């Protein structure tokens, strides 16, 4: 013990980024998918609950994506992610009040979100990035601050934005698919694909990965590490804005709109593995479906237990796979 104190040995962790996919996990997921398809064919209510679960899960997934992105970039959990997403949704709302069309507001908001996220990283996170606890506390402070500012500017009453995908509903047999839910799913999957392309095929993505993995070495080869971190946060804020805008049609605009979603998004992100965007999406979708089916078929699982069940699932998965379904085992060297 004294030796450790004197020499201050620290553990180094090696991290890998890229396929944490293991065969058992994939098999398990395929089996689950087959179960869902079969169940849907047998029972219309099962099918409808699954579809509804996927729609819910897409919302969790979209916010989980931004959590994962921040974690990948800076190894930090951003408690203010939900509030930042909420604030950017209010930006979009304000733009529509100024007579911009929904989609014009949407894309302009994404731009504003990027700047917002980058500024937060530079101004608030960078000064204390060596201390995990300090960063966490700052994100907590940001949570409260943003909540207060938004309530001050726009008020706490329910507000409504135009529906992004319209209100049509498609029917396949007795199962209804709403255009909004399909749109949300599509947007979420598109986001993952774009992220994947960014990280795998572009120089910027490579630089960002390098900056996250081995900041010292990356700096040596000319990567502007600080700039990469800021960009990471900016992108995460963009994903958060998307999440907020996709969530708005379901819970409408109020300062607390993302708070419950954030909780489920945490569960989804950790479930999938905090460093895996694909994991976040699959984790979110799986969580949504699971909660709906459990609620439908298990009597004891009444609505009060929805949140605890989500976390119980998470904890069970973590006990078996401590880094999530697609996470990588971290090797700790002394």
């Amino acid at each position, binding site marked *: 013990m004294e030796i450790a104190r004197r020499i201050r040995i620290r553990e180094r962790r090696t991290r890998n980024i890229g396929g944490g996919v293991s065969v058992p996990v994939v098999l398990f997921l395929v089996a689950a998918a087959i179960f869902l398809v079969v169940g849907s064919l047998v029972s219309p209510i099962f099918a409808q609950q699954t579809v509804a679960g996927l729609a819910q899960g897409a919302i969790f997934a979209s916010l989980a994506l931004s959590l994962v992105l921040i974690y990948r970039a800076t190894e*930090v959990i951003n408690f203010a992610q939900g509030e930042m997403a909420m604030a950017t949704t209010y930006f979009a709302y304000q733009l529509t009040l100024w007579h911009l069309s929904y989609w014009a507001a949407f894309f302009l908001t994404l731009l504003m979100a990027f700047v917002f996220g980058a500024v937060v990283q530079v101004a608030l996170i960078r000064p204390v990035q060596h201390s995990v606890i*300090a960063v966490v506390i700052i994100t907590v*402070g940001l949570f409260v*601050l943003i*909540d207060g500012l938004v309530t001050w500017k726009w008020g706490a009453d329910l507000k409504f934005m135009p529906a992004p995908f319209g209100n049509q509903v498609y029917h396949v047999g007795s199962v209804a698919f709403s255009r909004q839910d399909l749109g949300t799913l599509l947007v979420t999957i598109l986001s993952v694909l774009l992220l994947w392309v960014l990280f795998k095929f572009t120089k910027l993505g490579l630089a960002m990965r390098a900056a996250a993995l081995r900041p010292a070495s990356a700096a040596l080869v000319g990567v502007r590490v600080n700039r990469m971190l800021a960009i990471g946060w900016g992108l995460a804020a963009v994903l958060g804005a998307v999440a907020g805008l996709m969530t708005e049609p379901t819970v409408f605009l109020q300062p607390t709109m993302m708070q419950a979603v954030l909780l489920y998004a945490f569960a989804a992100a950790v479930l999938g593995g905090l460093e895996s965007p694909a994991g976040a999406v699959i984790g979110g979708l799986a969580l949504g479906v699971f909660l709906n089916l459990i609620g439908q078929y298990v009597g004891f699982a009444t609505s009060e237990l929805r949140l605890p069940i989500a976390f119980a699932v998470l904890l069970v998965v973590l*006990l078996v796979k*401590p880094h999530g379904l697609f996470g990588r085992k971290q090797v700790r060297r002394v």
Partner: protein
Amino acid sequence: MSRRLIVAIVVLLVAAAVVVLLPFQLDGYHEGLAAKVAIFFIAVLGLNILTGYTGQISIGHGAFMAIGGYTTAVMSHYHHTNLLLTLPLAFVIAFGFGVIVGIPALRFSGVYLALATFALAVSVPQFALKFSKFLGGSNGIQTFTTPTHLWLYVVSWSCAGILFLVAWLVLRGRTGRAFRSIRDSEIAAAASGVTLPIYKTLAFGISAAFAGVAGSLFVLATNGFAQPNEFGVFLSLELLVGAAVAGLGSLWGVLIGAIFIALLPTVSADVPLIGSAHGQDVVFGLIVIGVMLVLPTGFAGLLHRLRSLPGIRTAEGED
């Protein structure tokens, strides 16, 4: 006796004197506020033992407060137990829960542990809703008798004093060294013969027990009324803020951290600028961010830096 120990004892005696004399100066309402400081002092002390001394991050101490608080409410409501007796009961029950949580927590570390404890903070209040017949549900559960401001003040500060002593004794001995070694390097600690599971779980238990007592007093300060909304996520986050402002890994900043989170909401509610409702949140958020930017190692860190200024003799050693 070492110089540091003398200074410590003097500071403690002065503080004790202030605490004893204060009620004669304060009216009931402010006694309530002072009691609130004591309550958060106990909770932050507990959290510090876990996060500051063994390095296990917990964002779930609100859950342990809830357990202690509901213990008091339930025992008093159904069995008319003397309020004072419910405190050691809450201590023991919360300790038990802490150990139960600590065992699976051995598998997690870092951010995963933080999220697991966060899950706890979110889930525990939901159980009060699920078992609403027994635990009162959304209508809460009321103790049989309610304490006066003075009772609350005296009992809270007595508990704070006693538990501070307990913490100090635990942390300066072998257990404390074991805790600190775990924080510095688990592998090295294990290699040096520290049985990790026992000490890590013990830390969880002690930490939870402190939070449990704080929770009991918290419910008593809320007129003996326990209800799920009192133990929301934000309570756990507040405790973490308090611990960070206090400065992790040291007992001396805990009072400052406790004063910070106990009184800041009241102070920021009076901010004239933005209007009372929103001023509170905005000011709280700004100050938390500001304090962290300026003092990332908290008040204890500030003390440490002051002590290591040239001209001030320091003795290298343990806190």
